[in-house]
């Protein structure tokens, strides 16, 4: 099995989010950068599939700044065989521009599976995987939470509103991975040492060919990045079951939601 996983270096926004002085970017001072958590599931899946097949290659590909080498090394430490950094200073805000660069790299790779996270936790674009599939003319299943592969076809399950879709698809295919498909391994010390010697190919790229209005080319421009509106200070209606009638009254007369 030859498997590619597209991975993104993202700000660990779990801890804190401070907006940059330009009002458009993230203030990166003190921010830790991590391998996008959904991509971690994708890397794990690639490793398990390869191990199961007993042969093959797991390749990780990132479009990003020079520092994304660290992200690639993390995936190599988990067990991926080699990495490719498509190096740019401007990661596009336009998902389609990212998809084009990744598709060009993946095109002649001869992969049986190309895996993505369901979304990147920094910009929540939620689009690059299926766009790459479209550009490459490959079948695609998104937000896969359960996966079985037999020979050259697969069955995936994806959650929809009020149920689960069971989807069949032929290989080669593009899949985007939902949390819960597997339990990602922690890189062991041995893996971390080995990762240092694994091949990491750096290729400079220019997304969007330098055209388009948005950062990194393309048709999406970040106009502003703002904190969410504060919720107005709420109030404690009362204590215990005795407060219920007053709550009902407020929900009806003040909030008007009942």
């Amino acid at each position, binding site marked *: 099995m030859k498997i590619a996983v597209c991975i993104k270096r993202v700000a660990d*926004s*779990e801890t804190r989010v401070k*907006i940059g002085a330009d009002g458009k970017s993230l203030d990166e001072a003190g921010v830790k950068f991590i391998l996008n958590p959904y991509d971690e599931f994708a890397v794990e899946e690639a490793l398990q599939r390869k191990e199961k097949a007993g042969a093959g290659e797991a390749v990780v590909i990132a479009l990003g700044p020079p520092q994304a080498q660290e992200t690639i090394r993390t995936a190599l430490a988990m067990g991926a065989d080699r990495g490719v950094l498509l190096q740019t200073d401007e990661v596009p*805000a*336009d*998902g*389609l521009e990212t998809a084009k660069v990744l598709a060009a790299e993946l095109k002649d790779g001869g992969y049986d599976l190309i895996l993505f996270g369901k979304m990147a*936790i*920094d910009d*929540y674009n*939620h*689009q*690059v995987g*299926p*766009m790459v*599939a479209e*550009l490459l003319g490959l*079948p*695609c*299943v998104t*937000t896969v939470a359960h996966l079985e592969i037999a020979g050259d076809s697969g069955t995936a399950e994806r*959650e929809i*509103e*009020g*149920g*689960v*879709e*069971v*989807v*069949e*698809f*032929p290989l080669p295919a593009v899949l985007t991975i939902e*949390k819960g498909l597997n339990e990602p391994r922690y890189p062991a010390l041995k893996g971390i040492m080995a990762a240092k010697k694994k091949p990491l190919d750096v290729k400079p790229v220019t997304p969007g060919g330098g055209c388009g*209005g948005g950062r990194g080319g393309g*048709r*999406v421009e*970040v*106009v*502003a*990045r*703002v*904190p*969410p509106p504060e*919720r107005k200070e*709420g*109030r404690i*209606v*009362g*204590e*215990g*079951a005795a*407060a*219920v*009638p007053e*709550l009902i009254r407020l*929900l*009806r007369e003040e*909030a008007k*939601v*009942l």
Partner: protein
Amino acid sequence: MSGVLAVLEQRDGVLRKVSHEVVTGARRLADASGGAGTVDAVVLAAGPVRGTDALGGFGADKVITLTNGAFGTYAPEGCATAIAARATSGRYDAVVFTASATGKDLAPRVAAKLGVALAQDITDLAVEGGAVIVVHPVYAGKALLKLKLTGTPVVVSLRPNVFTPVQRPRAGAAETVAVEVSAGRVRVKQVKAAEAGALDVGEAPIVISGGRGLKEPANFKVLEALAASFGGRAAVGASRAVVDAGWRPHSAQVGQTGKTVSPTLYIAVGISGAIQHLAGMRTSKVIVAINKDKDAPIFKVADYGIVGDLFEIVPRLTEEIRKLHG
């Protein structure tokens, strides 16, 4: 905007309610900058779709049913081809989806086919100086991105429950066209339905979520009873702590690593209000918290709070809501 295409959703031949929101959002775009724009609403199905006649009321000038035997269940490739073809032939300025499981899957395929930009899961949209401006929550809701989209058409998907349907009556003329596309290589073999009539937490107008304060899985029946008292409009959600413990399915998890919900009413029961939980529900219109700890962080975002034992408060609330609904 001169022409906007609203992409609707149906299941088993019945229009899904989110479709009203899609038409509402599309109408808003069409009415921006002048107001002469038209909204065509398109639904893909195996045959006639029930519920489409209401769409004129929400602002659809025309409702087009594209039929194909393969559209009985979701056929991602066939649907993407049919919508992209329609978007091209109709020369629309914008194509509007709902950010449902299906919409989020379909929109990038269509945008890539058309070679245009996409913004998913948006919570606001406007036209400024001829460009479409959208708002899109990022970093688990800790910031909002305001994006300018250029090119024609722009493609967006709307976060469910945010674009409250409004009556803006138009003709709503109906048209049915049989389309010839192959279903594609990706096939939905089966849809394992959740309990009949169960609402999805991502779409329900009322969400009642339980956390570790419920003590054990069986106690969720207290929340189910409360949900039932709202007469089929409420869904039961959960914190990650109880999902990880296996008390509730992952599909019910609200928060950073679960679902983002924006219901009219969110009731958090026995949930402390960790930042990752807030990430998934802070855009709810009205938040109610029930917690025995008066210092629980959930009270900081709640519009109304009751301090005390949920096992006393929730049954009383259920009783009162039942009375209201007679």
